[in-house]
């Protein structure tokens, strides 16, 4: 890999950051990453990130949970061991179904919530013993960092970023 240079532009205000992101995008630079201490609404759109599909996965997991609960209760209560409770034998699924609704609901929620959260943790690479990758400890406190790769345009980029109100620029040179 060739030697790469990235610029970390530090901002200390979300509004300034949003203006900067728009300006940098308008100048046709690619923003590698933005590290934020809190969610900045509209940042993903301004950066050009695709919308997340995690809610769709949750819906599918919920459907899975519903199917699991239906199959499980049909097998246990109707097929494997039908019971005669108070003179009301459980011979057909449809007649017994109303009593199964609460657990159908609970398992739908259980699957939708847990599998979605697990998907989120895996996709965003979050798990115990994972090392944090934010370049500066201040990004969890009150600073935002915009990371941009330099392609022979260091000084122009530097001027642009300083002009957008970056409080600090860190030019990181990788030499191999």
């Amino acid at each position, binding site marked *: 890999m060739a030697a790469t240079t990235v610029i970390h532009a*530090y901002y200390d*205000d979300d*509004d300034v950051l*949003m203006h900067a992101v728009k300006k940098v995008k308008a100048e046709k630079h690619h923003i590698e*990453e933005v*590290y934020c*201490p*809190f*969610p*900045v*609404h*509209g*940042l*993903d759109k*301004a*950066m050009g*990130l695709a919308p*997340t599909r*995690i*809610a769709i996965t*949750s819906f599918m997991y919920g459907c899975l949970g519903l199917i699991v609960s239906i199959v499980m209760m049909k097998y*246990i209560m109707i097929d494997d*061991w039908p*019971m005669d409770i108070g003179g009301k034998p459980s011979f057909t699924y449809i007649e017994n179904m109303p009593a*199964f609704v*609460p*657990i159908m*609901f*609970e*398992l739908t*929620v259980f699957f939708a*919530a847990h599998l979605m*959260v697990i998907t*989120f*943790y895996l996709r*965003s690479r*979050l*798990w115990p*013993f*994972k*090392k*944090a990758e*934010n370049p500066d*400890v*201040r990004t*969890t*406190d*009150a600073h935002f960092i915009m990371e941009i790769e330099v392609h022979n345009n260091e000084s122009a980029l*530097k001027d642009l970023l*300083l002009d957008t*109100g970056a*409080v*600090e*620029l*860190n*030019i*990181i*040179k*990788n*030499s191999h």
Partner: protein
Amino acid sequence: MASHYEAPIRKPLVLGDKGYHDVSVDIAAPIEGRANRLWWIVFSIALAAFLWGVGAIIYTISTGIGVWGLNKTVNWAWDITNFVWWVGIGHAGTLISAVLLLFRQKWRMAINRSAEAMTIFSVIQAALFPVIHMGRPWLAYWVVPIPNQFGSLWVNFNSPLLWDVFAISTYLSVSLVFWWTGLLPDFGMLRDRAVKPFQKKIYGLVSFGWTGRAKDWQRFEEVSLVLAGLATPLVLSVHTIVSFDFATSVIPGWHTTIFPPYFVAGAIFSGFAMVQTLLIIMRKVSHLEDYITVQHIELMNIVIMITGSIVGCAYITELFMAWYSGVEYEQYAFLNRATGPYWWAYLLMMSCNVLSPQIMWFKKIRTSIVISFIISIVVNVGMWFERFVIIVTSLHRDYLPSSWTMFSPTFVDIGIFIGTIGFFFVLFLLYSRTFPVIAQAEVKSILKSSGARYKALRDAGKPLYTISKNGIVRETIVNNNQEAVVPSESNQEESLLNALGSFDAGTQDPDDLKKVKGIGPLMEKTLNKLGIFSFLQVSKMTQKEYDLLDSLTGTFPGRAQRDDWAGQARMFLNNDK
């Protein structure tokens, strides 16, 4: 882009002149400081109560359920009362974090973290009771539908008690991941502020390596929203199903269709009261008055008043329906509740739950912290008696007058109940010393719309931010994998002060830096020359600043680090408060 506009009529939710960094400092302060004597006293009492409860539980399990006050007629009393009471208390946490999130109520952000913690801790207490009542708790896994060696012996999916198992375990586990997911960014903040390696390691572990990329935040917000959407019907289902334990039976007094909504309203009512009790203490002890304001207390009081009125409405509906049904057993069950030997419990329930919250109609009363605190405790006493009345008075005079009896708890019943209160407070007190008790990332996201500082700026017609174009530039050269940080070009002194914050001699008093072990008169002068005058500045020093300082002063390299100046300074800061 997100507009930070908020109608001027809205009162600020974060008081004081607070910027983003101030929020981090305030939320981290109770964790980074030391516990005061009061904390230790309360913790010891809670621990003693917990241990007493453990003893009572061991006695119950080793001897048998016969040590409780149950008898042939009243075969369900304190255990189920306590179970329902604790589950009910748990409901406010999810309600605050999920329902108020869906309604975009910003005031929830100061209280949702603690309310969710309370949910988890109280559901743990609730779950204890059915498990102990099993008699052989080591066989508790029998409630799970697992293939087994007894022939095809399955659990009964027609039973509301099994629905309860599914509802409570789904509720507990979903609340836990909802809570923990919200905690990740805040643990990340603590991890990045931590100075001592042990704290850094622990908070690094529990933060799951939270990095805060734009994509992470995008997913985080979506996950929070979907979890809120899932948790809202979940929380309503849980107490609905708890009420089915009674409503699906044929006992007069239990067999009523109003139970589900009535129980859910009661749960929210008692849960908010418990949140109120805990937060009124915590805001004082942890100095969070700027975040948990009187406005928050007032809004919670309004919820308590409304849900209390719903509960009162349900009580009266029950009485009306008993009379209107024409069923004499049903009529007697309610007449017996109000005028029988347990009239005092009924009266307590009515006065604590229906009458006492009505005084919240007066603004003076619902903004009074002392009265709010008293009412919150009164409500929880009343809600305990509500469950006691429903359960015991419906059972103690059954269809057969010869078996009519009374219930009196034994010391074991009382001991287990006190033990769960102790356990709850042990957990909550430990939480309040080690967890970020306010969702700081969320508070920061509403700071510009609802913070006092920015509201004042907006009222004055001033801009909320300024773009300064004289940022500093530094260069870092990374060699293969070994990182060598060489700050160059820019002024080292400037970058040091930039990280530590500058000192304004006009408004601040310089601290006696010599108090810090390792700083002598000479070093103090050197530090002052660099612009470092206060403990606050020293407390912000990290490895990078130490190195920078060493290269600037050229004396005693590594000294500051060994003596942990930042940690010491933080201690002095806390002592000053």
